[in-house]
């Protein structure tokens, strides 16, 4: 299950990526010096709370950052630098080689266009596929995401489908050009829990079937635990911890990850007096501290934490963390007991 050895084929390499905006409150650093590799066929989960920069990270890969965003660093797909690429060249990659499933299926489909027309758009733009062939392919795609009566659905408008159905359509749309990498931005957040589970198992099936690498962004640790091979934990625009999924959940090495896990109510333990939560609030992105952004909320805080941001280091093979604390964790669990 867990990808133990680093796979050789790494189509997407991100190095030192920073995304920042000028706003009325000052400069907002949404993503700060992130390194990230996406290996062929892997299922990568990115977790973080709202404002941790995870969505901005995805959008920047496809050149969808806001027009006034400033981007630095490097995003390489195969041997092509995507950052600063002109739209025509970028369009050869996005939708085609790297595509995206958006968060809200209610707003990500054009309400005035039939499903069929929206699904085939990629093919018509990228492949100049004939209308008949594109339609046939779209019907196959809809069937592969388990939409019954696909031919009829093609003629319908988005409002005639349920939320889960619409998200399936979005996924079919994203996969129709057989991309190498699929980015999914909280694809199940807007759906109810049973549908969410269906969508997640659909992702897994599709990956098994097509070998498309999936990058799933979510704030739901439970979802990540089920489906991902490898997990990245983000906080205030930085990577805090990065590990194979089992290692991360069994032995978190970063206090933030540990705190997140402790905040999940457990069904198999006695109900605590209060649901645990992490004290404090995430830092204001317009005035980030010079040191570790998690330090003010951290149980293991030391003097050095406020002075310097800890670098991301490989603590054990495949398991990276950005923390000054070297010893074992477990304070939280001890406290809770």
């Amino acid at each position: 299950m867990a990808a133990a050895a680093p796979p050789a084929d790494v189509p997407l390499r991100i190095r030192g990526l920073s995304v920042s905006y000028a706003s009325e409150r000052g400069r907002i650093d949404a993503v700060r010096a992130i390194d990230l590799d996406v290996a062929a066929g892997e299922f990568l989960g990115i977790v973080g709370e709202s404002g941790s920069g995870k969505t901005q990270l995805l959008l920047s890969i496809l050149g969808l950052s806001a027009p006034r965003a400033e981007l630095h660093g490097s995003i390489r797909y195969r041997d092509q630098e995507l950052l600063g690429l002109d739209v025509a060249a970028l369009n050869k990659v996005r939708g085609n080689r790297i595509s995206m499933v958006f968060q809200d299926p209610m707003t990500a489909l054009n309400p005035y266009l039939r499903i069929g027309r929206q699904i085939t758009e990629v093919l018509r733009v990228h492949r100049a596929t004939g209308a008949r062939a594109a339609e046939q392919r779209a019907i196959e795609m809809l069937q592969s995401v388990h939409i019954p009566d696909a031919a009829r659905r093609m003629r319908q408008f988005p409002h005639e489908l349920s939320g889960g159905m619409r998200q399936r359509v979005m996924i079919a749309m994203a996969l129709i050009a057989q991309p190498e990498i699929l980015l999914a931005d909280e694809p199940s957040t807007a759906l109810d829990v049973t549908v969410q589970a269906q969508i997640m198992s659909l992702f897994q099936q599709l990956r098994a079937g097509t070998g498309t690498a999936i990058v799933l962004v979510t704030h739901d640790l439970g979802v990540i635990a089920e489906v991902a091979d490898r997990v990245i934990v983000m906080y205030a625009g930085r990577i805090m911890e990065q590990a194979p999924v089992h290692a991360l959940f069994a032995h978190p090495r970063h206090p933030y990850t540990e705190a997140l896990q402790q905040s999940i109510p457990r069904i198999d333990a006695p109900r605590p007096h209060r649901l645990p939560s992490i004290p404090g609030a995430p830092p204001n992105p317009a005035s980030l501290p010079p040191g570790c952004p998690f330090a003010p909320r951290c149980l293991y805080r030391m003097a050095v934490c406020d002075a310097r941001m800890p670098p991301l280091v490989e603590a054990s093979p495949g398991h990276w963390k950005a923390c000054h604390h070297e010893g074992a964790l477990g304070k939280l669990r001890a406290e809770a007991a």
Partner: protein
Amino acid sequence: MNQPMNQPMNQPMTPGTSPAAGDTSGLWRQVLRRLRRQRMSMAAAALLATILAACLLLPLFSPYDYYTPHFDLLSRAPMLAGGHLLGTDPLGRDLLVRVMWGCRISLAVGCAASLVSVLIGVSWGATAGYAGGLADALMMRTVDILYSVPFVPFVIVLTVLFGRELWLIFLAIGAVSWLDIARIVRGETLSLKQREFVDAARVSGVRGAAMIARHIVPNLVGIVIVYATLAIPTVILFEAFLSFLGLGVQSPLASLGSLVADGTSEMQSHPHLLIVPAVFLAAIIYCFNYLGDGLRDALDPRDG
């Protein structure tokens, strides 16, 4: 359309398939269905259709025309006997035929000028809104400047330069009323641009003009149709106002506006000369307003 689609289309005929499930044949059928539920709008549409049919057909079958004076029948009140159902005007011309011609002219001016303003307004507004930045600023400041041009002197200058021509009225009103729609469309485009489906289309490689035509404009259809329906009465009133000032249609041709204007001078001695065209003018304007209201509700594909 083509082969695979024929099958589901036939299904509603078989018993056991609910008609709602088979009703996928289009946005417009659904809009009509929802519009049909709105009584005021349907009544307005029916009345409008009646007026339209009457003003197109009646002058063809009437023994009278709108321009030949009859000096033995001046300013007759409406009566059943004698053939002049709605009476005659101070030159003895049949009022019914003149009012029908007035409806023709007013509706033609209303529809043509609204069409012109929609075409210019939508392309201008959608382009400005989608392009954003400097292009947007320049295009919208142009609109602001044109807004500040006073309308009546503008029409007077036009009539002085080109004479009193009917197409000039189309042009003048169209030239002014596209400004509103450009602003509305631009505002709507700004918000549409933020929607995820535009990002989704961008990821699919759709750009520029194709994006505007395929993803922005269809989403504007609702407000544009509503706006156009509501703009027609405004334009008709505009034309009436111009005719009232004597800048509108050239006599003996009449519009509802010029008939009302003529009627006011006779309103004490022959009130029917004012009342008849005024009733038609009011009816047409109310009909368009109600129809526009109903369309606004019916065109939103998101509900029912």
